[in-house]
Structures are given as C-alpha cells and as structure tokens.
C-alpha cells in the first residue's frame, strides 16, 4: 500500500465497499456531530488514509458497563474497531492473553510507543489503603494509571466513574475513589465521556472524530465533547412540549404517563443534565430512558449519585439547588405558563454555570488540567 492510500482504502476495496457507500456511512457520522453533509467527503478521505493507532483500555473500579456499551457500537461496529480501525492492544475483557502475557502486552505499548497511543480508562481509581482497593497483576490502579496515562498521547475517561469518581466516590466514598482528572492530574489531552455508561454512539463518534481530523473535539468545562454534551436533555426532549404546556405524569401508569407527558414531577433531571440522549438515543436509536417512561437520573453530571438523589424528588427540592420553587408551589408556578417555566430554566442554567461554564471555543484542548470539579467527596 502506498503512503497516500492507507490500508483502509484497500480494505474497503477488498470488501467491495464503494466510495459512495463510504460517503453514506460518513454522512451518518457527520450527523452525529451535527456537521454539515459536506463534511462527509472530508471524513471519508481521512478514514481511507488512516493508519491503525494503538488503543489500550484500562479497567479499574469498574462494572464493565462501558465495555459492554462499546460492544453495542454499530457505526463503526466493535468488530470493525477491533479488527480494522484500531489496534486494541490491551483490554482485559476481550483480550485472549491473560496474566503475564497480558501484562507484557501493556508494558510493550508503554515501552515501544510512548506518546503515540490512546488510553481509555473505565472505572474510578481508589487512593485509600495504599492502593489495595484495586490491584492488577499486583500493581495498584493508581500506579498503572500514572504510568500508562502519563505516556499516552491522549486519555479518554469513559463513563462517570472514570470521569468524576462516579459510584465508588459517592458519599462516604469508602475507598477514596477519584476520576482520572483528580487521580492523575496533568494528563495530556484528557477527554471525559461521562454518563453511566457512556453511550456507544458517543464513544464511536469520538474515535472517528480523532481518526478523521487527527485532533480532539472542542470540550465543555468538564472536558466533555460539545458534540455530545453541548445541550441539556431538556433542550432536545421529545416531551418538552408537555413541560411547556404543564402536562405532567402524576402517578406511574396514569393516563398522562401512558400518553408520554412530562416526567418533571416524577423527578426528571433532564433540565440540568448535558447529554445528547434525546437525539442519538440508545442501542441504535431504539429508545432512551425518558422514551420508556422513566425520568432522567442525570448520570452524565459530576457527583450525580449525591447531587441528583433522591432520584424521584423533582428538581427544586434536590439539595444544593436553591431554586425558588418547591414541590408544593410547582402547580402555581406552572399556571403562570411558559414564561415562568423559562424563568425556571434561568435558575437551573445559573447552577450549571456556577459549576463550570461550558466553553464554546473551537479547537483542540491544550495540555491543561481539568476546569471542572471532579471526583471529590460531597
């Protein structure tokens, strides 16, 4: 293969995939990013010249939910990612080698390709008990993360545990769990893909973005890609009209629930959660939590296990949110109509900004530390 035509071009030709079909696929990718259709051609060209970058996927205090989510990827499929697009040199859940041979694979990447590989981290990193709350091959998670993420060209913290500490870091944080940003400060090109788990569509889109543009996407204040975290659930919710019209589910299975009314009173955290669930949905666009009748639990936001609970209390009563409304005045508040509702959003937006103002600037992130709080105890 010549230098101008990468292995992928040959691969596509071999499989009988025309450029026209590739463009169709890339148009879908462009749609995920909210890019114009004209970007499809650029993506297609970049993909066919791509080399196979090395990826190592580390699992610490995790549930493998993000790995499972990644297995649900369809564009590209996980088979394509593993066989064709990337060289996944270490991933405990899927790799054939074990024990010593697995450790050798990871050490080989760190030693032979420093600064040239992508690290994905799943799960939080415990700092208590000298690291004994999570060891792999006898080494602590913190030790491994420092070495591997320290040598990576970029680190993707996938899921809310790796991003902000997540469930293990929920009060009282028995193991001193932290997200990558706090456990290993100063990691190069850290991208946070929060949510519990991160949506396969967003993991795939981030990887394709990087393979295409050879850079990382613009991020918000929590180092999350704007293409997936630029708007709240509420902004794009299919039930938004019911919120504006004051049509609420009052009881599980009532007429309003069956009719798809707004879940705000049942505890929905959509108004304060930045994530693209309503547009990309889940499992190849099949459905999403609000679509199946359950409120958003805010899983993409920092410390959601403490800040968004109790899950079934509606927002103004959530501790830490000093909104003017309370559960008893919601009815009155709503009778004022849409104007009051938007005033409510103003309050919620203010809270969001106080936690970390989303950055709208374009361009790849520099080697700066995280700007959002992450992983600490409440």
């Amino acid at each position, binding site marked *: 293969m010549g230098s101008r035509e990468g292995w992928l071009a040959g691969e596509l030709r071999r499989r009988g995939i025309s450029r026209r079909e590739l463009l169709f696929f890339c148009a879908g990718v462009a749609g995920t990013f909210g890019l114009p259709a004209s970007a499809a051609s650029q993506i297609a060209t970049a993909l066919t010249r791509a080399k196979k970058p090395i990826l190592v996927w580390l699992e610490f205090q995790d549930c493998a939910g993000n790995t499972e989510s990644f297995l*649900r990827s369809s564009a590209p499929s996980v088979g394509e990612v593993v066989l064709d697009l990337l060289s996944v040199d270490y991933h405990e859940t899927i790799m054939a080698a074990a*024990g010593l041979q697995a450790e050798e694979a990871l050490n080989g990447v760190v030693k032979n390709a420093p600064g040239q590989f992508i690290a994905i981290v799943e799960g939080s990193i415990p700092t208590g008990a000298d690291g*004994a709350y999570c060891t792999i091959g006898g080494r602590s998670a913190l030790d491994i993360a420092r070495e591997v993420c320290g040598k990576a060209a970029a680190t993707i913290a996938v899921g809310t545990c790796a991003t902000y500490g997540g469930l293990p870091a929920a009060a009282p944080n028995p193991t001193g769990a932290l997200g990558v940003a706090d456990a290993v400060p100063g990691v190069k090109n850290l991208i946070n893909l929060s949510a519990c788990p991160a949506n396969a569509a967003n993991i795939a889109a981030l990887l394709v973005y990087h393979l295409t543009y050879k850079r990382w996407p613009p991020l918000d204040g929590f180092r999350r890609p704007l293409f997936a975290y630029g708007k709240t659930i509420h902004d794009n919710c299919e039930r938004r009209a019911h919120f504006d019209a004051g049509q609420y589910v009052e009881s599980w299975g009532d007429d309003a629930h069956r009719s798809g009314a707004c879940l705000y009173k049942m505890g929905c955290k959509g108004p304060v959660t930045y994530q693209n669930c309503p547009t990309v949905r889940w499992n*190849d666009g099949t*459905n999403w939590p609000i679509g199946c009748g359950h409120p958003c639990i805010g899983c993409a936001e920092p410390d959601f296990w403490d800040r968004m609970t109790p899950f079934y209390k509606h927002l103004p009563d959530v501790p830490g949110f000093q909104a003017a409304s309370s559960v008893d005045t919601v009815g009155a508040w709503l009778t004022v109509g849409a104007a009051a509702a938007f005033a409510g959003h103003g309050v919620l937006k203010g809270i969001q900004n106080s936690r970390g103002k989303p950055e709208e600037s374009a361009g790849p992130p520099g080697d700066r530390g995280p700007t959002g709080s992450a992983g600490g105890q409440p």
Partner: protein
Amino acid sequence: MSHVVVDPVTRIEGHLRIEAEVDGGQVQDAWSSSTMFRGIELILKGRDPRDAWAFTQRICGVCTTVHAIASVRSVENAIGAKPPPNARVLRNLIMASQCIQDHVIHFYHLHALDWVDVVSALKADPEKTSALAQSISDWPLSSTKYFAGVKGRLKDFVDRGQLGPFANAYWGHPAYKLPPEANLLAVAHYLEALDWQRDFIRMHAILGGKNPHLQSFLVGGMATPVDPDRQASINMGSVARMKELTARAREFVTKVYLPDVLAVASFYKDWAGVGGGVGNYMVYGEYPETDDDKPPLFLPSGVIRNKNLGKVEPLDPAKITESVKHSWYEDGATPLHPRDGETRPRYTGPKPPYERLETAAKYSWLKSPRYDGEPMEVGPLSRMLVAYGSGHKRVQELVGTALKSLGVGPEALFSTLGRIAARCVETVLLAEKIDSWVDALAANMDKGDLRIHDTGKWDPSAWPKEAYGAGFHEAPRGALGHWVHIKNGVIANYQCIVPSTWNAGPRDGSEKRGPYEAALLKTPVADPKQPLEILRTVHSFDPCMACGVHVVDVQRRELARVRTA
C-alpha cells in the same frame, strides 16, 4: 513444583487473580482472589430505598439487570408492595433476554478463545469448513465463499502485523485440539455473535430505555407504561418488534450456538472429567408464572449435595452463613444479628506492588458463603441440574439430547465441559420460552389491565417505620440475594450475596476450598508458563468479580424467603 500466578485473569468481568501450585503436569492446589473493592453497601446507607436499584445495578454492567431486580424485590418485600401482573411479565422478559444474550457473549467472546486457536484458522480450507458447517446446522451463512471471506479478513488482519487483542496469546498450545476448519467456523461465529448480541439486546432498549443499565425499574412495579392504543407506551408495535427479536434469537441459538457447543465439545470430551469442583449445587429459582405470594417458578429452586441428582432438597435461606477468615475484613469478635451487623474492610495483604499473596492468611476481597456449612456452586449448571433432578421435562429432554449427541452419561455434567453445555441448554430453553411472556403481556393488555405499579405503596408514608426485606433472583451467573433494612424511610443496612461470591470465594473458616479452588484441583497444565487449562476451568464458571465483592456481615442469616415479581 511451580507456583503459577494468573493476574489479570482476562475475558471476565472485573479483577480476578488465581495462584496455583502445579506439579506433575497438574494443579495440586489453588487460591482464588478478588483484587477490587468499592463498598457499595456502605454507600447505600441513609439513602432512599427506592433509589437503591440504580446504585446496586452498577455493581455490574455485564449482568446489568440482575442487581436492580434483586434490589426492587428486597424493598418490595420489606414494605409490602405488590407489583401488578404486567410488571412481573416485563421483568421476566428483561431477565430472560439478559440471560440469553449474556450466555451467548460468554461462549463466543469470553470463553471460546480457550478452545479455539485463531491462528490455526488460517490453515483452514473454506470448502471443508463449509461442509463442516452444513453438516451440523442449516444456518444460511455457510457457503465456501463466505468462509473464504472470513479467512481472507483474518489473513489481512494478521498480515498487517498488529494483532491487538489476539496478540501474545497461547496459539499453538498443545491443548488446542480443533482442526483448522472448526477453528475457522468458530472465528466466523465469534464475529457474527458480536453483531447478533448488539441487535438482540434492543429488547432491553424497548423494555428499559437502554442497555447497559436499563432505566425502567421501580420499587412496586415498572416505569414502562403499557397500552395498546398509545404511542408512548409498550404497545402492539413493541410486541411485534420483540417477537421479531426473539424469533431471531431462537434461530441464532439453535442453529449457531448449540451446534457449535456440541461440535467443539466433541473434540474436548476429556474435559468432561476435569473441573468438577465441590459437587454441591444451589438454586433460588426464577421466573414466577403467577402473582401469588409463592408463585410456581419456571426454573425450580433447590439444593443438590455430592452430585446426587436423585435428591433435590428444598432450599432454606436460613442455612446461609459467611466466613471472613481468609477475606480482608475485620473478624467479628461478637457475632451480630445479620440485620444489624456490619463488617469493616481491613486490608492486611502485601502492599502493592506485590508478587505473591499470603494465601495462608487473608487473601481476597471476597468472603466465603456457605450453605449448611458447605460450599455451593451456583449458576447455569446448578439450575439445569436442579431442574433435571426435579423432573423439569424440557430440561430433561434438552440435556438428554446433548449427552446423547456427545455419547456421554449424566456424570459428564459435573465438569468444566458440563458448565459450558448447561449454559447452552439454558439459553435454548429460555429462547423457546420467552415468547410466552410476550404473549402474556399482549393478552393482559387486551383484557384492559394497564397497571404497571403498586402506586399505593410509593410514598414512604405508606411504609412501616421499620422493615426488613429479602429479594432473590437467578442471575445468569447464579443465585443472587439482596437483604435490606429500612428505618424511617431510609436504608439502615444493605447486603448482597452474589453468584461470584459463592463460586470464587476463598477458603472458609474450616479451610474448605471454594468452588473455583476445588474445581482447579487436578486440572492438567502442560506448560506452567502458559496456563491455558487453568483459564478453561475458571472461565467455565463465567466469573463476574465486580459483582462478587461486597461488604456483607453475617454469621448467620434468619431471613424469610419471600418472592415478589
């Protein structure tokens, strides 16, 4: 004598370390250690019990539904909530689809590479592979051209020199016995199963909004409205989509998974004599068929001791105890009542980085659960054995057919190979059964019953001031129990005993080995530097370590067996 350490054990969920003494080409002794701890039960204290399912669900993302089910059942048991029939059926559908998908992923993506030599597949003749495929199944993807394409893709992958997850493995190991054509067939189905699992689990998106970590559970029912005449509810469109997915699941499971298991097993019959383990099997039972307090279960509960299929004992949860002698928790000086007890994590192992664990002392974050003082194996093999021994007709037929095709007797079930076969049999059984619950849902809606929730018990003001509850579930990996103590509307104590704790736990107070440790005894090891055979037996249990590690107290449990849908 060589001391073999396998850490990380890969192709599992979570963090597992096996240490083994190997001598004379066999494992002489073994120690199973879980090396990760989070403390989720401690995090649950003081929280709203209606939130608990979402917390416990995150114990594991592979078995993403199981801790949610056990959690809502335990809280419902405590507060006296009764989920309506639709909720029971929706849960049965969620549990069965989880089990079907999880078992297929286990065989192809977590276990197959212990038996299938990927590199050998490069030597396969596509024409002979096609003949082999067509001799065992009428699955349509079986032409010479198809297998030539798979082989070509594999060859290009290898020629590129970046082997990724297949690098540095045990290819060419003498314990691999399949001919190249069977290896190529398995590689093709490894890739097909990757796509199939993604498509099938849209069942969970229909029923729970997303997978992993479905979001439709509620204490007292389900959050998924059902109404044949509304577009925002589970309606006949949803029913049609589910039936399409279950039909394709049946086809894949009976035409790909089952024939593959039987074909692979036929080359490894010696493994029907390896990995037997403790020989005791425990099952809580699953899939309630009615809404009674003690409903008939599609898969029965029971206990089998010493491989005696002729005697299935009734299960009594009061006989469950746990030992921490070899676990990194403080030893209880004064045994507390389980409802009030608390065990504190206390790491006393070597400071990381370390080479060896102190296996004579404490060596795992797992505890050692025991039933009537005995270690118990839990999981698909236990379920199929208890069902077989209890006279479950369809299980007897399916098990009998599998044994006959391999030309072995029932004693072959108590083995590494038996676990693999039982998991497959269960998958076929559930794939056959699952449509009956789709039909039940449709029929119930047709009667005008649209209830999904026991709304009268939603508000904590309707709860007793103090309450205890237990919730049981047969997860894909085995018997799962959650215990909750609620006081003044919040969680006072929460405990889980999880399948992988039963199977992967360390030795107990009387030095009896746990099921993994016992199953590894006498496992052949051709090359201690390449412990492929150890992986075979450990993987046959389908380890799920994140599930296994919990702060549970307990010297003795006296908890009522109550089941709710």
